C-alpha cells in the first residue's frame, strides 16, 4: 500500500527537521531586563503556548503553523501549542488587538495560571503596524496586557519566531 511505502521511506530518509537556530540575542536582552527575578526551576524547560489571534490578517498564523510542522518541529524544544489557556504558560498574541477582540483577549489571559508570559508576535502586535490609528484597533498588545517579549516582522519568519521563543525558554524555564 502506498501509505506503508511512504511511512517506510520517511523513516529511512530520516527527519526533514532542520537544525535549531540559536536563541535570539535581541530577545535574550529584552527578556533579561524583564524576567530576571522569575524562577527558572518551576517549568522544567518546557513551556505550553496558547496562540491568540487578536485580529491579525492571518499571515502570522500561517508562520505559527509552519513552526509547528515537521520542518521546524517546535515540540522538540519542549515548546507546545496547547488548546486551552488553562494549560498555557505563554500567550502568543498576533494582530493589533481589535476592540472587538479585547475582551476575549483579556479573558484568555486571565484564564491562564501564573507564572505567565505574553509574547507579541508581528509588527501589528508590537504597535498596531499598518493598522495603527484606526478606530477599531488598540495599537498593539502592550495597551492591553503586560508584554514580555516582542518578535517583530510581518510576519516574523519561522526562524525568528523560533529563536525568540527559545530565548524565552532559556530565560524563564
Amino acid at each position, binding site marked *: 500500500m502506498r501509505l506503508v511505502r511512504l511511512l517506510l521511506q520517511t523513516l529511512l530518509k530520516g527527519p526533514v527537521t532542520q537544525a535549531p537556530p540559536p536563541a535570539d540575542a535581541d530577545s535574550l536582552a529584552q527578556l533579561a531586563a524583564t524576567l530576571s527575578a522569575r524562577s527558572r526551576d518551576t517549568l522544567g524547560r518546557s513551556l505550553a503556548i496558547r496562540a491568540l489571534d487578536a*485580529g491579525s490578517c492571518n499571515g502570522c498564523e500561517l508562520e505559527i503553523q*509552519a513552526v509547528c510542522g515537521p520542518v521546524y518541529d517546535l515540540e522538540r524544544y519542549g515548546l507546545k501549542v496547547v488548546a486551552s489557556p488553562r494549560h498555557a504558560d505563554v500567550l502568543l498574541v498576533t494582530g493589533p488587538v481589535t476592540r472587538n477582540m479585547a475582551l476575549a483577549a483579556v479573558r484568555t489571559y486571565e484564564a491562564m495560571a501564573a507564572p505567565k508570559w505574553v509574547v507579541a508576535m508581528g509588527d501589528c502586535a508590537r504597535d498596531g503596524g*499598518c493598522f495603527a*490609528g484606526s478606530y477599531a484597533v488598540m495599537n498593539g498588545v502592550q495597551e492591553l496586557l503586560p508584554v514580555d517579549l516582542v518578535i517583530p516582522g510581518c*510576519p516574523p519568519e519561522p526562524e525568528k519566531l523560533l529563536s525568540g521563543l527559545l530565548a524565552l525558554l532559556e530565560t524563564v524555564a
Partner: protein
Amino acid sequence: MLGNTTLTEFLDGLRTVPQHQPWPRHLLDERAWMDLLHQLAESDWTLLGLWADGGEVHAALRDEEDGAVAVASLSCPERKYPSLSEVRPGAIRLERALRDLWGITPVGLSDPRPWLDHGRWPVSRPLALPRGPAPETPVDYPFLPVEGEALHIIPVGPVHAGVIEPGHFRFTCSGESVVRLEARLGYTHKGVEELMAGKPLAEAAKLAARLSGDSTVAYSLAFARAVEAATASEAPPRAHWLRALMAELERIANHLLDVGGVCNDAAFPVMLAHCTTLREEVLRANAACFGHRLLMDRILPGGVSHDLTREGGATLRKLCATLAQRLNILVDIYDDLPSLQDRTVGTGIVRPALARRFGAGGVVGRASMQGGDARKAVAYPPYDELDFAVPTQPLGDVNARIWQRIEELRESLSLVNQLMDGMPGGPLTRPIPTRGGEGMALVEGFRGEILLWLRLSEAGKVVRCHPRDPSWFQWPLLEAAIENNIVADFPLCNKSFNCSYSGVDL
C-alpha cells in the same frame, strides 16, 4: 422589462459615469433600482458585491450568459435604499455591514442585527460624515431562536482551540446532530476601509496586502489592477506574467495546507505533516525567488517589485517537478484510505442550487458545480494566453472540496511551468499617472473571486476603496452544510471551506 433581458440591455440608456473602468457604472434613480430588484427576481445575474461610497450605494452584477459586468449605483440622500436581500440572500451580511459602517439603512432587510459593529468602537457609523456617537453599551447580540424538544446549545469562540482566526459559532444540537449553526463574525474588524481613505497608493497597497494574509498576492493584484483601471494605465507584459506566477504559487501553498488540514481534522495527521513539508518548500522558493515567504508587497500598482532570475526560474521548475511527483503519492494515499473517506464522503454537503443562490464561487462553489473562475471569466492577462481547465465536482461534500483542491493544484503546477516557458522580457513597472478615476478589479484568489473597487482623487490618492472577499458568499453556506451533521464533523467542514475571517471582517 423582465423576461429574457440581458444585463447590458437592462442598463442600456441609463446614465453612465465617466471614468469608471473597465466595466460601466450606471446611475439609477429609485424607480430604476426597484426595476432592478424585480428583474433580479427573474434573471440569473450574480451579485458580485454591494458597498457604499459617501451617499451612494453600489451593486456590482454579472450576467453569466455573456459575462457582462456592470455596477448599478443609487444615490441615497435620506440614507436608505431598497434592500437586495430578498432577491439575493448573499447580500444580507453585506447590507448589515454597510449599515454598521455607513449608517445607510437597507429598507426591507429582515435582519435588524448589527454585523461588524459589536458596540465596542469609540464611534458608530465610522465611515459616515458625520460619524455617530460611541455606543453606551456593547451590543447584546440575539442569536436566532431555535425551538424544539431536548435541544442544547454549544457556544464556541471567538477564541478557538487551534491556531485559527477568531469568530463565534453557536451550535444548537439535538443529541449529536447539529440542528442549526449560526456564526457571528466581525472580531477581527480593523477598520481597513477607513484607514485606506486619503492614503497615497503605496500605503494603501500595503493595507490591501494585509486584508487576508493568506491571499496577500491576490489582494495586491486586485488593488494594482483596480488602480491601473482607474488611471487608464497598464503594467508591462513581464509584470503580468510574474504576477500570475506569484498568484499560482500562492494558490499551491494554500491548497496544500488545506488538503493536509482537512485530513488532519479527520484524524489523519500524516497528511498534514507531508503537506506542510511540501508547503514549506513553496514558501522557501518564494523567499529565494522574490524575497518574501508569503510574497507580501511584491505586486504594486504599475508592476511588480522583484524580477525572477535565471536561478530563481530553475528553483521553481525543480519545485514543480518535486511537488507534482509527491502530490501524486499523497493523492493515492487519500484515495486508498476508506477510513479517511468515511469521514469526508457525504459530509457537509452544499447543494449546487444553494451555492448558486448565494453566488458562491471559488473552491466551495466549484466543488458544488459552479464553474466560475475570474481567470477565465475576466481572462485578465496573462491567463488569456494560458492553457488551463477549471474543474468542478458534482457532489459538494468535504470529499469534493478536497478533490477540487487537488485538481486545482495540478492545474496550477502546469500553469507555473507554462508561465516559465512563455515569460516575456522587458521592464517590471510602468509609472502610474497622477489622476483621478474609478476602477474595479476581479481577481481569482485561492478561495475564489475577489472584487476590489476604488476611487482615486485627482492627486492620485485613494478616496474610497472597498475590497470584497470571496468568503462573504461562502460563510453562509457553511451554516447550511453542517445541518444534520454531527458536531464532531464541524472542524472538518469548516476546514474544507477555509473561509477568511480577516477578509470579511475588514
